[in-house]
């Protein structure tokens, strides 16, 4: 229920911003339409575009048309021909006239590949480094790990990404043909190999956060009374750490992981841009820059769906791991 409300609000806000912002900036719908026409906008072409996209209709009507399309499908006049777009219809790109949903579905696997691979790496690396750091607090390992982590959280992806490209692609030529996305179904090996740099670059950023978080969670947990109780029972240290401490420390991490992953599935803008990956993130940037409302709506809605879904799963998961939540 909350999820539906969320989607409605997000779509309305996006819609509103898209049309209000140019107006506030003094742009008329004529100018907006003109930007869609292409090289030489004649008055005729502009009128045609306005007519076709319904740009002169009141905002509410336009929004209503969009919502109706999502549920019942919609007919679009594309020049002389009329195309039918079936039910969940997100419309056609103002720019390329491509239908939005298939474009999204086309781009989603790239982002999915990037997000899932990177998240596995950062989860494993970040959490294990965090645990080790906590257990060896104050040692050289801990200091180095935390210094690296600090660098990781403060360096932006386009910096680490470009540096790693410069080093591994251009200097060592590990990817002689550059890094280009290739489909998983065609060649899983190549798919993975080509994603290594983006994965590691993106994972570095998150792993740094996770290592710091895990470390502080672990240190906090190790000071808890129930850890002392576990030791007082005579449990071996590996059980105390591996069972009692870990269970408590990882609970908040699970939550954050779910949300981070959900957020990333909507598009890893910077990483995709840096490595020229044709995912949802780069799609959203292009759409925004080219004023392609239907595409922007599509990306935003999809991202919202991911986030809403992720938080739903996190809530359920949280109740599974923490009995205090489960029982109210």
């Amino acid at each position, binding site marked *: 229920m909350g999820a539906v409300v969320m989607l409605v609000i997000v779509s309305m806000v996006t819609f509103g911003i898209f049309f209000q912002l140019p107006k506030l900036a003094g742009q008329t719908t004529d100018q907006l339409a003109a930007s869609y026409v292409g090289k030489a906008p004649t008055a005729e072409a502009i009128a045609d575009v306005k007519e076709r996209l319904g740009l002169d209709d009141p905002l509410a009507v336009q929004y209503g048309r969009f919502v109706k399309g999502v549920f019942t499908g919609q007919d679009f006049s594309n020049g002389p021909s009329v195309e039918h777009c079936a039910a969940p219809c997100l419309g056609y790109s103002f720019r390329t006239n491509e239908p939005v949903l298939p474009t999204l579905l086309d781009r989603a696997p790239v982002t999915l590949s990037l997000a899932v691979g990177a998240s596995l790496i950062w989860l494993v690396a970040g959490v294990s480094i965090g645990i080790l750091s906590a257990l060896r607090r104050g040692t050289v390992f801990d200091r180095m790990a935390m210094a690296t982590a600090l660098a990781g959280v403060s360096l932006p992806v386009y910096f680490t990404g470009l540096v790693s490209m410069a080093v591994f692609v251009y200097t060592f030529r590990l990817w002689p043909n550059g890094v280009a996305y290739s489909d998983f179904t065609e060649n899983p090996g190549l798919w993975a190999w080509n994603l290594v740099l983006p994965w590691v670059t993106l994972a570095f950023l998150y792993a740094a956060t996770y290592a710091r978080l895990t470390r502080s969670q672990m240190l906090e947990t190790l000071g808890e009374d129930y850890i002392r109780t576990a030791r*007082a029972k005579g449990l071996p240290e590996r059980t105390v750490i591996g069972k009692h401490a870990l269970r408590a420390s990882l609970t908040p991490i699970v939550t954050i992981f779910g949300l981070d992953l959900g957020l990333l599935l909507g598009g890893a803008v910077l990483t995709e841009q840096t490595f020229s990956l044709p995912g949802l993130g780069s799609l959203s940037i292009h759409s925004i820059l080219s004023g392609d409302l239907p595409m922007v709506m599509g990306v935003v809605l999809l991202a919202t769906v991911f986030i809403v879904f992720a938080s739903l799963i996190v809530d359920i998961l949280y109740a599974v791991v923490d009995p205090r939540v489960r029982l109210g």
Partner: protein
Amino acid sequence: MSTVYEPSAAPAATARAFLEVRDLRIHFPTDDGLVRSVDGLDFTLERGQTLGIVGESGSGKSVTSLGILGLHHRKNSRMSGEIWLDGRELVGADPDDVRRLRGRAMAMIFQDPLSSMHPFYTIGAQIIEAYRIHNAVSKRVARKHAIDMLGRVGIPTPDKRVDDYPHQFSGGMRQRAMIAMALSCDPELLIADEPTTALDVTVQAQILDLLRDLQQEFNSAIIMITHDLGVVAELSDRIMVMYGGRSIEQGTVEELFHSPQHPYTWGLLGSMPRLDRDRTDRLMPVKGSPPSLINLPSGCAFHPRCPHAQGPGSPCTTVRPELVATAAHSGHRVACHLSPEQRLDIWENQIRPNL
């Protein structure tokens, strides 16, 4: 240092008490300096007996009990002296051997039962775990035992409550569950560190009753740590008063309540609420603040607060008083430079009449 022992407690191994702590020191190196939380502590305890440990906050009670269980980190603490439990020495023992004794030979009940239980595991799972570390039994047998123990400590319908989580128990029930867990392996030594502080008065009385009953049943030795002199008076056979990481007086309940000899003990008795006096009229807490454990006062650590300290240059400020028997063959021992006659005089004429 030359601690004076009771004549009978000569180093002969045969004469060792069930629990014997000798010249125990537990120090923590910190950025501010070396914290001497326990600094030369001696006491003994026999099976089936209860030793009450009293002393103000920071006097080293908890550090001592955690030390006996070997729960201090070897890395950030320094421990020396001897702890003999049933003929085994623990301070110099392999940590893994001490670990195996924990929970089985010696167990502990902590002050705050809510924070002392893992919030994500059921009460039953936590008791079962405690039992199964030391007993090679199946989960089913262990579960039956856990239900049994919960019943023994007075949890109603234990077969249902065993699957509850700690937060579903009330404070008193949690402490009962904690006791059930501690007793699940029939420990010979049970240390209760302020087991009732977090509970209200009626529940407190029930828990103390329970401990007393269980002690009779299991014949275990109990160390009862508390701020509440009423509790020790009721439950203990012997009492040890701690100050600044040392024992400054120990003896039977009778001795400590009716002929206490140390000025600090007098102060403690003066701070004990009694129903037969008016509150404002009689509550006299020990004046001054607890000593710094990094820079303990020279001589008798209590001298800055002691109303009976002799002036500067006297032994009170220069020589640390040893814990000595008040009379030959007496178990009543006190660490104070005052002569026995002076102590008796002050107690009889100045202190007792005003209590």
